[in-house]
């Protein structure tokens, strides 16, 4: 491996914009989509949105342990198409995945095809136009798309997990290409913002990031009582084909993203966020008889209390109600979703540093 340097190398590319883009593709630095070439001018504009020095080292990106500097993150953010004012959100997301309990190297290499999901809370979401409304998971909304993509490019280019190398996803999901970044729909949530429920000040802007296996949709377009919506949600999440039921001891989070209509009906039925989380923890369980000999049974990580000799023992989807990240996201309509974390990724939170 070459010597560690805190500054990114400079290359001179002959030719026009398209030739520069093709050069970056040939070097293996893109995700299959065209990128904006990270010229010194564009990277410098990005760097204006942080007080940190360009050569500050944030850490090493697993699995191939590339040195993550502020400047290299900025270059990848330019390539992803970010506006400079998005940079604080990108940086916070990168700092989150570098936290040890995120296990970013595992998430990048696993056959499980996990990809980072970024939830943005706080005033910065409104200011930048990060959507928590209509089509927020994948609606070609610029900040959502480019911030998610920037994190994936940083992971890919500095961590080095690429197809035909250490990227081993059996199938992956589109989040592996451009990530998945959305804001909580705080304006239409019946509850306090998610980050406030986790102890952050309302005026703070925060990212919660976790590597997820995909987006599992839950439609309920007939029931209009909160209780009816909850029943459908619980039934949908008692889903055998996800290994999360076998991975409880790894303390994996589980995102439950309720659309505003479902959330409001559930709140009207008398549920606060905490009560709903407690109910999901109590009810989203599968009996041991369904889990023995299936999915990831051989690698199960169950606590002592799970009595395998009793086929009716009900195994919860997560270790504690706290591991359920309950947020409100989406626009009009009756479609919610859940996103199980993958493998050993416990997720991470960072406060967004604004200048």
């Amino acid at each position, binding site marked *: *491996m070459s010597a560690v340097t805190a500054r990114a190398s400079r290359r001179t590319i002959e030719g026009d914009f398209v030739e520069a883009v093709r050069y970056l593709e040939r070097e293996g630095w893109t995700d299959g989509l065209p990128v904006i070439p990270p010229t010194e001018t564009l990277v410098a504009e990005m760097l204006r949105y942080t007080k940190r020095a360009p050569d500050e080292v944030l850490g090493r990106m697993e*699995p*191939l*342990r590339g040195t993550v500097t502020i400047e290299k993150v900025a270059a990848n953010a330019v390539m992803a198409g970010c506006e400079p004012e998005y940079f604080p959100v990108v940086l916070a997301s990168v700092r989150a995945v570098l936290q040890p309990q995120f296990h970013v190297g595992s998430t990048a*290499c696993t056959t499980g095809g996990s990809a980072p999901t970024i939830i943005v809370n706080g005033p910065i979401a409104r200011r930048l136009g990060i959507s928590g409304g209509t089509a927020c998971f994948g609606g070609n909304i610029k900040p959502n798309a480019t911030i998610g993509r920037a994190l994936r490019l940083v992971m890919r280019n500095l961590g*080095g997990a690429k197809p*035909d*190398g*250490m990227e*081993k996803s059996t199938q992956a999901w589109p989040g592996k290409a451009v990530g998945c970044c959305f804001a909580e729909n705080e304006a239409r949530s019946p509850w306090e913002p998610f980050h406030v429920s986790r102890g952050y000040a309302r005026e703070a802007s925060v990212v919660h990031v976790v590597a997820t296996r995909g987006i599992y949709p839950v439609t309920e377009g007939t029931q209009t009582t909160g209780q009816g919506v909850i029943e459908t949600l619980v039934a949908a999440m008692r889903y055998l084909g996800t290994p999360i039921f076998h991975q409880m001891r790894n303390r994996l989070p589980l995102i439950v993203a309720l659309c505003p209509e479902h959330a409001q009906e559930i709140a009207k039925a008398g549920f606060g966020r905490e009560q709903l989380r407690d109910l999901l923890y109590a009810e989203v369980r599968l009996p041991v008889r369904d889990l023995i000999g299936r999915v*990831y049974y*051989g*690698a199960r990580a169950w606590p002592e209390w799970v009595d395998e000799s009793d086929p009716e023992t009900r195994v919860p989807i997560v270790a504690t109600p706290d591991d359920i990240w309950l947020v409100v996201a989406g626009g009009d309509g009756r479609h919610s979703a859940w996103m199980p974390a993958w493998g050993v990724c416990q997720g991470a939170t960072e406060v967004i540093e604004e200048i």
Partner: protein
Amino acid sequence: MEQQGRPAVTVVTEAFQQAAVARAAALGLPEHPRIAIAHPLASRRGDEVEKMAVDAAASVAAALVKR
């Protein structure tokens, strides 16, 4: 372990050989020995895994001693 002076060998399934090479190089251990076993592993029964371990033991030992 190797960096701490203890001989080590990595056992991977065939599907992960390329990944193991890349990772070893990234850790500055390009010569790190590697034993490949059949893929997949996760879906095998305990007794099958045990047999694979027994079958691989001699080559693991040889790789450790050679170094």
